[in-house]
């Protein structure tokens, strides 16, 4: 193992160190901010390094403590993992900068520590090659998210917070049952080892295997807020601070990532009764999710609620190509995933910048008197809406076109086409309605002028950076789609993972 290989553990170790360090700086917010931002930049550098390492197309394993593969815990580095890492680190840096600029980190204790523990959970979930470790990193991520979600406190946040925590605890219990079933059947929880052993199971065990697979997918669907299991999301995201919701934009996609990671590898064509286990259920759920999400965008009464429904809608749209489980559709889905995370976060940050200027009107979609910075906020909101709905020139459009293009080769294409085109129209109407209410309609006469504090324009920077990234994703679509295609090709060849992970340890 060379020094370069040691870089693999950096995305997990760095946030752990940064989080512990910021814990010690409880009363020195400026120092904590500097350390926290420094940690984020270091992580970003590590992610770029890992991304470059994965360009050679090889799959790397990292045996913790040098215990050989199926026995010890193993990290797994491939194109999919490095893409997700890079996306997380970019998002985290922008969101953290925004939190520091707006002073959101001052509204409660331990913001930076929680933020970095959350990143540690996210990075770990993307890197791990072991199902039980995936559970542990999910928990790290969730525990930090409980703290972040309640950051700033308030009654409505507490109310939504309890529901969020309880839903996730039940989800974790299901996760453990699924893991227990898989372990009881195969005697391993290493993903690559599972791939081998699941394929070798006898006919007597197929029923249990299918149950285990479906339970696992249910848990991932719950974390991803897939349609019938989505009810926790709008309430939670609408109650928390927008800057934290912006970071949470990637949390639902972790559930989708976990599906993309486990299904082709463990529940692929050779898995008997559990082959492509979410098969017939995922597409209808995804369609339902996209429709419900965009209907929610249309019906929302507050900007945060609307952005939350937009996140829901993007997960639904994303899962449509995922549910087809082909190389081309996965490639399109990955492109859509990257832009959907950035678009969701951008929307939440724009909502934050708007809310901060509207005083007591906050994020309610009602006409208000003119407020300072209304035109700039309106323009940004327009761009955020374009990004979330998927209209040109931002990357959502390219993502949707890619999905339409690849799904045309599949038998069920009319349902996907109808849903995507129909929901896009719904989304356009929704954002147009709320945008014109907020920024164009004059308040009824007699209402007092907004007495928001005068803000500098600094809090417009972070959303603009995210929007610029989305524009870049459009311009560089050729390179990005080549990347996602390579990642999808890797995912759909599970034998190479088995060889790389189990072969290395022997």
């Amino acid at each position: 193992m060379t020094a370069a290989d040691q870089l693999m553990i950096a995305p997990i170790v760095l946030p752990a160190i940064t989080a512990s360090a910021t814990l010690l700086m409880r009363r020195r917010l400026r120092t904590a901010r500097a350390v926290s931002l420094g940690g984020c930049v270091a992580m970003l550098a590590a992610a770029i390094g890992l991304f470059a390492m994965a360009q050679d197309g090889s799959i790397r394993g990292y045996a913790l403590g040098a215990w050989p593969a199926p026995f010890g815990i193993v990290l797994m580095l491939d194109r999919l993992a490095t893409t997700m890492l890079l996306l997380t680190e970019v998002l985290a840096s922008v969101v953290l900068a925004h939190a520091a600029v707006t002073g959101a980190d001052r509204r409660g204790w331990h913001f930076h520590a929680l933020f970095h523990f959350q990143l540690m959970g996210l990075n770990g979930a993307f890197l791990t090659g072991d199902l039980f470790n995936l559970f542990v990193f999910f928990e790290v991520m969730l525990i930090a998210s409980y703290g972040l979600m309640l950051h700033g406190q308030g009654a409505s946040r507490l109310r939504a917070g309890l529901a969020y925590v309880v839903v996730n605890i039940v989800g974790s219990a299901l996760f453990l049952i699924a893991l227990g079933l898989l372990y009881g059947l195969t005697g391993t929880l290493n993903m690559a080892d599972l791939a081998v052993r699941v394929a070798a199971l006898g006919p007597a065990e197929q029923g249990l295997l299918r149950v285990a697979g479906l339970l696992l997918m249910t848990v991932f669907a719950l974390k991803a807020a897939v349609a019938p299991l989505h009810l926790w999301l709008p309430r939670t995201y609408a109650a928390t601070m927008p800057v934290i919701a912006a970071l949470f934009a990637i949390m639902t996609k972790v559930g989708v990532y976990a599906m993309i990671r486990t299904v082709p590898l463990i529940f692929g064509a050779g898995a008997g009764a559990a082959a492509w286990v979410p098969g017939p259920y995922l597409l209808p759920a995804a369609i339902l999710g996209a429709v419900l999400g965009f209907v929610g965008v249309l019906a929302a009464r507050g900007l945060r609620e609307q952005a939350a429904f937009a996140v829901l809608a993007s997960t639904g749209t994303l899962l449509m190509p995922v549910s087809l489980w082909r190389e081309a559709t996965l490639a399109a889905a990955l492109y859509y995933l990257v832009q959907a995370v950035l678009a969701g976060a951008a929307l939440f940050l724009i909502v934050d910048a708007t809310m901060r200027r509207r005083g007591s009107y906050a994020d309610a979609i009602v006409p208000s008197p003119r407020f300072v910075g209304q035109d700039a906020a309106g323009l940004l909101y327009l761009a955020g809406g374009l990004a979330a709905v998927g209209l040109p020139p931002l990357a959502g459009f390219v993502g949707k076109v890619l999905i339409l293009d690849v799904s045309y080769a599949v038998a069920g294409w009319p349902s996907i086409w109808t849903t995507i085109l129909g929901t896009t129209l719904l989304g356009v109407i929704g954002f147009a309605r709320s945008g014109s209410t907020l920024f164009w309609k004059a308040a009824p006469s007699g209402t007092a002028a907004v007495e928001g504090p005068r803000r500098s324009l600094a809090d417009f920077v972070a959303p603009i950076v995210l929007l610029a990234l989305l524009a870049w994703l459009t311009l560089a679509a050729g390179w990005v789609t080549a990347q996602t295609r390579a990642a999808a090709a890797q995912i759909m060849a599970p034998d190479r993972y088995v060889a790389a992970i189990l072969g290395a340890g022997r």
Partner: protein
Amino acid sequence: MSLELLVASAIAVLVAAGLYLALRGRTFQLVLGLTLVSYAVNLFLFATGRLVVERPPLWAKGVTDHADPLPQALVLTAIVISFAMTALTVILSLRGFLEIGSDQVDGLAEPGEGA
């Protein structure tokens, strides 16, 4: 066989009782329900290593048959996490009760005598 049946029905009863309580409207019952569910899950994880008696989980001189040590390690992790989670829900419920003045799960005001 009887041991398996006993453990399986214990897990089933725990899950059923836990889910029933977790679906109730007040936070105290909810916390109890979640605790019962997590006990059931821990028992289940423990049982995935197969139920055997009088076998050490670690290497011992002269012993050829071992109990599977891995589920025991998994259960330990799961216990720690679920314990922390229970503590968090208790604190959250308390804070909710103190701030909202109601122990209803959805945080609504007291709906009279019912629930």
